[in-house]
């Protein structure tokens, strides 16, 4: 099986990585770059725990081949903290009580960040629709939806 050298930007850093052709973006992030904030929950594009931003849009990183990411720009949950400052969503999800076990949280935050980037003032229904691909078994979702709306208001 071939190994391909790709160039990409991850959380603002330029990277050169050799990846086997059957590796997913998720595997590359976790196993080559130790960016373990992105979680493996199903490897089938269903749970959303592995959601990252690929060229500005959220994707299930288990559903993208690493070799497809040559030249791409990737942002993971680790990239939401900039210059030591958390994203407003990270604070509002804490304040709302939207974190329990925390395993869905990184993917949830990426989906929410992508939503606010494209729709700075979403309704509760729009937030719910944007997060439908991020399964959470602990919180019951309501506080997470509230946290996204609070973040939207805080950013206005």
């Amino acid at each position, binding site marked *: 099986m071939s190994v391909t050298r790709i160039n990409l930007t991850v959380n603002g850093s330029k990277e050169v990585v050799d990846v086997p052709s*059957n590796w997913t973006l998720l595997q590359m992030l*976790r196993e080559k770059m*130790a*960016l*373990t*904030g*992105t*979680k*493996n*929950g*199903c*490897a*089938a594009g*269903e*749970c959303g*725990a592995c959601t990252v931003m690929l060229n500005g849009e959220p994707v299930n990183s288990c559903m993208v081949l690493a070799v497809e990411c040559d030249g791409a720009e990737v942002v*993971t*949950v*680790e990239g*939401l*903290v900039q210059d030591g400052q*958390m994203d407003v969503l*990270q604070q509002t*999800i*804490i304040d709302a*009580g939207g*974190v*329990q*076990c*925390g*395993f*869905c*949280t*990184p993917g949830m*935050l990426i989906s929410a960040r992508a939503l606010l980037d494209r729709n700075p003032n979403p309704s*509760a229904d729009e*937030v*719910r*629709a944007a*997060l*439908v*691909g*991020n*399964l*959470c*078994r*602990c*919180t*019951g*979702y*309501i*506080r*997470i*939806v509230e946290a996204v709306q609070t973040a939207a208001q805080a950013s206005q």
Partner: protein
Amino acid sequence: MATAQTKETTYIGVSKPRVDVREKVTGAAVYTDDIQFGAALLHARVKRSPHPHALIKKVDISKAKELPGVRVVVTGQDFPYFTGLYLKDRNIFARDRVRFVGEAVAGVAAITEEIAEQALDLIEVEYEVLPGVFDAVKGAEPGAPLLHPNLGDYEVPNFIFPVPDSNIANHFKVRKGDVETAFAEAATVVEHTFKVPHVQHVPIEPHIAIAQVDGDGNVTLWASSQSPFAQRNLIAKSLNIPESKVRVIAPLIGGGFGCKAGVTMETIPVAIAMKAGGHPVKFRLTREEEFYTNFVRQGLTAKVKVACDKNGKLTAIQNQMWWDGGGYTDYGVNITRAGGYSGTGPFNAPNIWVDSMCIYTNHPVGGAYRGFGMSEVHTGIVQVMSMLAEKAGVDFVDFLKMNVIQEGEKVLTGMTMHKTGIKDCIEKVAKEINWGVKDAPTAPNRKRGKGIAVMWKAPAMPPNAGSSALIKLNEDASVTVMVGGQEIGQGTFTAMAQIAAEAMGVPFESVKVKGPIDTQYSPYEWQTVASRLTWSMGNAVRNAAMDARHKILEVVAEAWGEDIENLDIKEGYVISYASEESISLKDIVVYGIPREGYNGWVGGPIVGSGSFMPSYVTGLDKETGQGDRAVVHYTTGAQAVDLEVDLDTGQLYIHRAVSAFDVGKAINPDLVRCQIEGGFVQGMSSAIFEEMRLVEGVMQNPSFVDYRIATTMDVPAKIDAYIVEAAQDDGPWGARGVGEHPMVPTIPCLANAIYDAIGVRVPNPPLSAEKVYLTMLDNGVVK
């Protein structure tokens, strides 16, 4: 025994922020799969049985061993010892017989996960297929194929009652009064048989464990675990080595809900690592394996018969339960016991008959699941009470208030009920949901209804399940609390920090409670299950904090020549009410205090220790289920919903859910509300969507594609959570647990509301749109 306190508190009953969240929102939190092991790491995969029931005639691993990259192949022949949390009926790998589809037959470790996977195809297993048991009721009948012919020889604690030469792994009985006469003389009798399907826990983090064995045979296991100490014990048993040779390290866990308690897959990497020459071996379940090889919530068939007098006062309760235990019931036998000793639900009647039987079947293995049998039991008992109330012409809320268990009454096992706020819970949810008022539907093609349900649940555990805690003081006067209970999302580290801060008199912010739990360094905790930590571990932490506090005050008393009774610790300072002196802990908790004129020193590094174990739980008579005190306590509560049924599709629209639980004392009210909300949604999800579709033992829907759980779009806009506090006499500040309870009443609550809406009962979950629609169709509600 700690006693409830009434004095003013600083950190108890206060919604302090969680201590574990910053790392969780930044991706820095370390879960088991995040630990990096480098190039030495081997990856394990498991050869699984495709048959629900078969004899193993031959396992040939020779070809698999030859595959380049494969390092270890093991089978059941390598590991002859039995293990199990209650009933010791399991081996690590099947030896002579497989009893469920997906059972481990052989294990492989290779340099990549994919090579290990390829090696599985090279393992040849010859089976002789046997007839299976796929229905618990039939499995209990004489003549059913026997799954465990040696059941009578298995090691079992004295409160589990297997029936040798049958598939009945435990038969728990309650016999009180005379139900037959009561039924004959009753004004109203209702009987109904309920079926609850198998469901899965679905933590978002699948099971994962990494094991390493050194040259002296010392085992280290890193696992996503609710039970590092129980796992140490069970793994040692299964390998026939002393506990001290096993070290379990449990980092943060991405959801457990019971399936990461006891032992499921964790012994497998250990077994493989024993032959891996010091290499660490990682084993991670795929999501699909998570569905059908992991512990499941057992299926239940419950035949419930109840009676009341002309006023609606209960006279008799009979509940006969057949639990579908699966191929092994090492944990399931105690769910059956819990189902039995709580088999009336929170209802009181003079005449009671309960049979709770755990039946071996060729289905996936039953284990703990949030509620530990109570969701299943309440599905039947609460619905049947609702039917009885209607038939007797009594409003259900009035019926509940008349018949729920009260302080001072004897519960079904003979124990005297302690103080309970269940009536307050009922009144609260009835008021909030506007009980008795029929609200109009929001659209012409919908019908609207309300439902209410009550619940109780006791921690289900051995009578002597213990907790312990250590507290050490650091140079900067910060306080490190060491515990063996796990942070599984419920917020226990935060609650323990509050308890330690309150008991010691130090600022909350100065207290650190952190994982990983490590059996080598952390103090003992039985398991993070049963909603027992706030109460049991909370007592241990409180005792440890009081111990540390006392040691500090002793030092200061000696140094200052004061009576210890005049000293106190407030916000990190020792103060004297007599001399009005004060001194910062920072100056004294590690280095001590110099005597006057530096004539020597008093004190030294302060370490406090505390433990807690209930000492009062008694056994129950095998034939009558009677005894002084079956359990430590019952947490009670009530739930109500207001929903609509879409007449075109059968879909449910839940407008509002209201819950109230008596938690004794909420250490952190907001975290309690988080449990109540999340628990309702998990209960709702299991009630509406979830079912393991088992056909001849094969799960038909082992993926998120076809095992649906609630998403953001399925939950009500608002879930109201109310806290009732009737103090627990031996809880820290009166607290008792509430982690599991919020999902217990949800199935009957929704079923009652659907009935109220459409006038036809859909008794058995899942209360899917399809089932609701077809029930309406078959009963003429729609055409």
